[in-house]
């Protein structure tokens, strides 16, 4: 039984959550409040991983950033490799989990009463200050649930991590891929243990979200 796979999954999920926690808020802010056409153009791209097969994303990441492509070769000159290593996994996961980081926060931001945002502006506070001290605190439940969703969604990722990471033991083999490998090995015992642990993680995050929802309704 390989326990390292949980460490890798956990590391990936934590890093993805940290990155998307920051990036997601700014994208959500733009999508929630911008009236420009750009917001309408960008939103479908951000949301596309929800409906795209992971293989589409995996294929394009390898095709564009792999050493077989000019872009991949170019980046390689600067020591940047985004395929078959942890950085690549992280890059793929960030894109793949983006909708989960953005969508709840957008609706959270939109439901902040306009009056208090405008009150902040009237008092001469900057847009950034208002975001930090008025909008974010008023959407904390949406932000927390976005982060929890991103975390558990990244733990559960399979297609993108398999294609972009390449299933390298101790480096890019995550728990979800390990199950696939165990089953192929006809090693149902370890497949079962790994699967049960992932099931436990998934259920606890969903129960946590449920509790959060109740707290918010109060």
């Amino acid at each position, binding site marked *: 039984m390989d326990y390292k796979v949980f460490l890798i999954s956990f590391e990936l999920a934590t890093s993805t959550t940290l990155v998307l926690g920051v990036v997601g808020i700014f994208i959500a802010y733009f999508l929630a409040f911008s009236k420009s056409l750009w917001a309408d153009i960008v939103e479908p791209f951000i949301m596309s991983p929800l409906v795209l097969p992971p293989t589409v994303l995996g294929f394009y990441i390898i095709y564009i950033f792999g050493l*077989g492509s000019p872009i991949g070769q170019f980046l390689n000159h600067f020591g940047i490799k985004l395929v078959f290593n942890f950085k690549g996994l992280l890059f793929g996961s960030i894109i793949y989990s983006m909708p989960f980081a953005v969508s709840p926060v957008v609706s959270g931001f939109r439901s902040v009463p306009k009056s208090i945002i405008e009150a902040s502006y009237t008092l001469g506070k900057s847009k950034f200050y208002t975001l930090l001290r008025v909008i974010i605190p008023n959407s904390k439940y949406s932000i927390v649930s976005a982060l929890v969703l991103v975390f558990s969604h990244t733990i559960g990722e399979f297609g993108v991590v398999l294609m972009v990471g390449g299933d390298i033991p101790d480096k890019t083999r995550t728990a979800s891929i390990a199950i696939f490998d165990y089953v192929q090995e006809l090693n149902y015992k370890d497949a079962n243990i790994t699967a049960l642990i992932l099931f436990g993680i998934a259920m606890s995050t969903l129960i946590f979200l449920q509790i959060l929802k109740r707290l918010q309704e109060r």
Partner: protein
Amino acid sequence: MKKFVVFGLLASKIVFGTTITVAAAADLRFVLQDLTALYEKQYPQDKLKFIYGASGNFYNQIRAGYPIDVFMSADTHYPELLYKQGLAYKPRPYAIGKLTLFTVEPNINVNNPKLALLKASKIAIANPRVAPYGIAGISTLHCYHIYHAVKNKIVFGENIIQTAQYVASKNADVGLVSYSLLLTPQLKGKGKIYLIPQACYKPIVQGAAVIKSTKNKNAAMRFFNFLYSPQAIAIWKSFGYGIPK
């Protein structure tokens, strides 16, 4: 805590020495367990790590910069291509695989393979676009002149071990799989097998190569050469492989 992790990493480096990462064709999954045990006994300073899959997929991944040390293909075509492209050192064939008809259904008679294939409602074959055993499987159907009669009943496994699993789990009634897999403890005696006559398919000569981008060339070469040692050959034979001349 962080200090302990660093210390642990250092310690593991001292204890295990070099890690050799091998991308291996799926038919090798079980024979390599025995080969690994022998190799790590002979060279305790090296640690072997394996990734199993279809040879064609590995070929594509290596071209995209896959960071592995040794590639063990299920044919000689892919390692030769990598060699020609300057991505691998000179490849060498290590074993010749055999194709087998396999079933776990009690009322299928494998001694008449043509009839067994015709009567089956699902036939499992590895994906011929990426798995050399799949090419051999398709050519067997042509050899029996039943390809057009049965082609709608074929289910494709992503690689040869998944194909064997389709049969072992009764999701397909028969399958054309590698003989080596059926000699493993997990599948041995689980069903009936019939060795497809060699004349029906191009010999599945399997070749290996050390990848040029390896950071552990010495260790990789050590493992590569080990595959052709007399002790390793005895293991290849015990899993039903032929030995290339």
